């Protein structure tokens, strides 16, 4: 406990999640979506969250903000402290009105699919205005004026005209900008971006990344950026968290993840990427097999099935996350660096 406090002073955590467990109770059985997820977000940093589909990246963030439909989803354990401007609160224990205040005012969410996240029968300007009236108590006319300013701020040309348009009248990139305008309307402390550029073309993706980085700096926010693209993470994250089958397998500063990975999964994931500008053709490293079925309760390392280094021990117990270096943790029994040498 003493150690935790010291960390807090040094790094100023803004979000601290311990042992988050989320399960889905479906007709087929219980899906162990998150089996004890622990991570934190420091003030002013960008945390990249990577992993394959089904690894629990989105479920983690949606659990924190009570965005999962319950039932089937049920948060069955853990704590998630948010250190805002006031006393720390455990997000998981908040009631409906409590979390709704956090969602708008303190933590903004950018969804992947802006078309389904925005209301199709309401103009974009009104949607942003509604948030402002609801959360900041602005008058409707002031809110409308402010929403035009916000649209201009995120780089939408002719904001006044666009505020009166409906989401379907926007192109993909512009819609994502409108979505961002909506999520920053109340000047939150944290922005959670859930694959915001996955559906976009690379040139538009570059624009959106640039925009979020600018906003982060200007509005002094912390960012959690969920993606499956390790290239995006390399360019914008300060720290990276790698998830696999409902577990955090590795967290480290961005350089450590790419140059000194400690978990066999991270190593293989990096090997599976084509190298840009390579002159000699080399074969991609692939990870054999597929991610495990989450209907089975994990009893050993979830990656053991596909791991090229798995030992007997890996089949007996779930590895705990341990220190691998400065601010570098991985959940693996092996010392990968030593094993490879």
């Amino acid at each position, binding site marked *: 406990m003493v150690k935790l406090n010291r960390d807090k002073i040094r790094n100023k955590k803004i979000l601290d999640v311990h042992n988050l467990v989320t399960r889905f109770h479906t007709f087929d059985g219980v899906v162990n979506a998150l089996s004890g997820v622990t991570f934190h977000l420091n003030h002013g940093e960008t945390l990249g969250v990577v992993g*394959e*589909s089904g690894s629990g990246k989105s479920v983690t963030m949606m659990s924190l903000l009570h965005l999962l439909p319950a039932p089937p989803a049920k948060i069955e354990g853990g704590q998630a402290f948010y250190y805002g401007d006031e006393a720390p609160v455990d997000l998981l224990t908040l009631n409906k009105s409590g979390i709704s205040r956090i969602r708008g005012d303190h933590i903004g969410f950018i969804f992947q699919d802006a078309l389904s996240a925005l209301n199709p029968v309401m103009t974009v300007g009104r949607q942003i205005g509604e948030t402002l009236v609801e959360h900041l108590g602005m008058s409707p006319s002031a809110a409308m004026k402010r929403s035009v300013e916000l649209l201009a701020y995120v780089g939408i040309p002719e904001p006044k005209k666009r505020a009166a348009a409906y989401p379907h009248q926007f*192109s*993909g*990139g*512009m819609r994502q900008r409108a979505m961002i305008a909506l999520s920053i309307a109340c000047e939150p402390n944290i922005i959670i971006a859930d694959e915001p550029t996955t559906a976009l*073309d*690379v*040139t*538009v*993706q*570059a*624009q959106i990344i*640039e925009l979020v980085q600018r906003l982060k700096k200007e509005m002094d926010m912390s960012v959690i950026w969920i993606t*499956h*693209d*390790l*290239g*995006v*993470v*390399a*360019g914008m994250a300060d720290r990276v968290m790698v998830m696999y089958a409902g577990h955090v397998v590795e967290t480290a500063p*961005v*350089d450590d993840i*790419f*140059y000194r990975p400690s978990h066999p999964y991270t190593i*293989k*994931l*990096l*090997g*599976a*990427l*084509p*190298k*840009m*500008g*390579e*002159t000699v*053709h080399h*074969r*991609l*490293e*692939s*990870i*054999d097999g*597929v991610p495990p079925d989450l209907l089975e309760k994990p009893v050993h390392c979830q990656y053991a099935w596909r791991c090229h280094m798995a030992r007997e021990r890996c089949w007996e117990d779930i590895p705990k996350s341990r220190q691998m270096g400065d601010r570098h943790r991985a959940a693996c029994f092996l010392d990968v660096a030593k094993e490879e040498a």
Partner: protein
Amino acid sequence: MMDTPSLEKNREPLVKVRNLKKHFPIRKGLVFNRKIGAVKAVDDISFDIHAGETLGVVGESGCGKSTTGRAILRLEKPTAGSVVIDGREITELGREEIRKIRPEMQMIFQDSYASLNPRHSIGNIIAEPMQIHTGHTAEQMRARVMELLDLVGLNPNHYNRFPHEFSGGQRQRINIARALSLNPKFIVCDEPISALDVSIQAQVINLFEDLQKELGLTYMFIAHDLSMVQHISSRVAVMYLGKIVELTTRERLFCEPLHPYTQSLISAIPIPDPILERKRKRILLNDEVPSPANPPKGCVFHTRCPIAEPECSQTPPEVKEIFNGHMVACLKADQRNGSLIPA
């Protein structure tokens, strides 16, 4: 390993595309149904694909890369132009004639689930082309299906399973097995890996490469993921608004891109290397791609081009060969050397 095709220049290419156009009419009105315009999905493009090589086609959504693939295989009838595959002009062939040559050319689609009939076992799915095109007996077909399943890395005993029992990567393997069932020479792969996870993408890409080596296949590989295209292709064509703006070997394209669009596209690819990423400068394009129903006059790229001059909005650039086999459609390409990005 992969760069042999450029040496085979004197040989007749397997696929020869000349001035290919595909325009989709925009109609209005119920009674007269007048044509009021056209979406120029593919507008006057020419290129060759040599036997045994992989031609990558990249571009943003809506640039016409999929339509090009579909028009080459006659899944869409081209509006104009010629497509010669293995010495045969296929644009004017009738239904029956085209059906006869279908075995030689196959396509693999992005959505592996939608392209498999959910009510058929995968054995039936893979055997179907053989039922139509060959006189194989049931026994022969079954043997061939098992052989194909083994070839693409699936368990041959899963013959009787249904598509929903497989993961995305495995379903894409089933699609590949079906495409291979008639021993095609040429396969158009339309974003075959973009719906898959990174670790699975690598599996499928390796499979494509192994099959090419083993069976001498020729691929046209359509994708928006430039880093994968760079990995698998021998030559790459970059498309923008229905036109090919640059076409060259992958080494030249990624080391010495000449067209400003290619340069900005390459600068926008995120590289999984933090130190490189921090040093990079991006050429950010303004706006988004204009509508192909109403493309800009002159050079189609001039509205977003960082180095456009007044001339560019007037004269459409010709595709010129700047260097041995390096084709560029830019008025300024030969006056400029190297990158737009200041070092």
